[in-house]
């Protein structure tokens, strides 16, 4: 299969008052077409930063270096920002954690959806409306004709996330990046959104990158998993291998911190794992 996104040796540093802070340190990553890749890690592990670097959404204080970063045959490193803007939103789309915060409260959801179609697809007004209704149907929003005229505050969190997904898939992207798409939602809504994402991924043959800290979400959606910790890759494996026989001790620590895997009356934490690691390192030297 062809590689959709291929990144070699990606590093991202932030210029801070205490010198350079390396958020991502030399990560290799690739996604094939029709593949669901999950990137798992705690907050601060650099999982979002790596994807924002691909999208070119990082602030000026960030320095991005990579040996190569290609998307669908285009070199993302040397690309002009004009060209990048053409690709982003059309061929690569992203969904963020807080659906309420990522929609503009001043415009109707229909306007925000049609804006994407106007900019990237150059559709006329009538075609835009028709496509918008079709998209709302695809993501399972009831009575789409009416809902297009709603403002974000008139919709629930789950509905807003559906609107975000509709905007993201509006131009039939080749790659969809979902950054913690269900963290702010209830379990029942989470299930609906995950099912929706997986269904759309299969129907459209998209590549899907799921960024999450929830091992349950990984188990429900991913084909392949990358575990990240403090900006470095700890493990990469297909989902079954990862859960069945995790190689990295960090992955094992993450899995044992799941409440359903509790043995005895206390949960084991990643901090315990780090302590053990330090002790082992001390004993070895």
């Amino acid at each position, binding site marked *: 299969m062809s590689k959709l996104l291929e990144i070699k040796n990606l590093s991202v540093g932030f210029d801070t008052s205490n010198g350079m802070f390396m958020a991502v340190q030399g990560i290799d990553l690739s996604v094939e077409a029709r593949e669901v890749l999950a990137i798992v890690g705690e*907050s601060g592990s650099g999982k979002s930063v790596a994807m924002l670097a691909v999208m070119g959404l990082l602030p000026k204080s960030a320095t991005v270096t990579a040996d190569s970063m290609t998307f669908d045959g285009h070199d993302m490193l040397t690309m002009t920002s004009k060209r990048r803007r053409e690709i982003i939103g059309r061929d690569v789309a992203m969904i963020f954690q807080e659906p309420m915060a990522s929609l503009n409260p001043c415009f109707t959801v229909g306007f925000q959806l049609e804006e994407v179609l106007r900019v990237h697809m150059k559709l006329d007004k009538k075609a835009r409306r028709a496509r918008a209704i079709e998209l709302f149907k695809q993501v399972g929003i009831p009575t789409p004709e009416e809902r297009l005229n709603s403002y974000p505050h008139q919709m629930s969190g789950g509905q807003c996330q559906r609107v975000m997904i509709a905007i993201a898939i509006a131009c039939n992207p080749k790659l969809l990046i979902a950054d913690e798409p269900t963290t702010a939602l209830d379990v*029942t809504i989470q299930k609906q959104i995950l099912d929706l994402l997986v269904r759309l991924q299969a129907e459209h043959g998209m590549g899907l990158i799921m960024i999450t800290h929830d091992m349950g979400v990984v188990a429900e959606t991913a084909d392949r998993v990358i575990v990240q910790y403090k900006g470095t890759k700890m493990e990469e494996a297909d989902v079954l291998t990862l*859960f069945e026989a995790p190689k990295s001790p960090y992955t094992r620590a993450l*899995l044992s911190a799941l409440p359903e895997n509790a043995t005895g009356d206390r949960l084991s*934490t990643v901090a315990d794992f780090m302590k053990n690691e330090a002790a082992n390192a001390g004993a070895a030297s």
Partner: protein
Amino acid sequence: MSEIVLEGRNIVREYHVGGGLFGKAKTVQAVKGVNFTVEKGKTLAIVGESGCGKSTLGRILTLIDPQTSGELLIDGKPINIAKDKVTTEMRRKVQIIFQNPYGSLNPRQKIGEVLGEPLLLNTKKTAAERRELAMQMLVKVGLGPEHYNRYPHMFSGGQRQRIAIARALMLSPSLLVLDEPVSALDLSVQAQVLNLLADLQDEFNLTYVFISHDLSVVRYIADDVMVMYYGEVVEYGTRDEVFSNPQHSYTKTLFAATPKSDVESIRARIAKKKAAA
């Protein structure tokens, strides 16, 4: 049978909505007649989706909102804050911890002041005593005395939740209402905070009312489970009863929606996907 700390008898809470210039006022029943009892040192988990009234019930238990009707008994004494004034003694018995540790701490207050304030308001302790107690509490929740003079923004989410827990414990309450205390936290930090709560429960013989929508957390921490749906209790029993044999269709939906991370379910999912492709 051990002592009952908290009892609710047919608790109802109504909100009056609207009544604008032309609109008619409506009455919404957020909690529709709920009964429950919690024994000392045990944990009751209240489960349900957003809008099911679980947080409203939490606010009633914490004496923030009055119930519209029904009886609330804490340590066997009936309380209705709509009628009676809440004494400092009552306040000391029940404390609450909120979901978002970023929102529940005042960014302009140093941690020392955050922890000292409940004592300042509800007791006659001197400044030196308050300081001493706050220092001790910081150590108990896994922080250190050096954090006393810091501001909330200098802490991570997990540490802030520890501070919120410390603040709730300052008055040595017997009942702690935890409103989604770990849902804003990362997996490993969540484990640390859950462990801390379990340690504190053992140490002080605390009673918890744990409000959550995460069933895997509930299964870990709860003794009794109450499932709410649109203001009604649809299922109430011990943890093992509810988890092994859910009766109501909503409870079953909840179980079905919870992500499964065991190897068997992953294998089944992959097989299904292969078959579809």
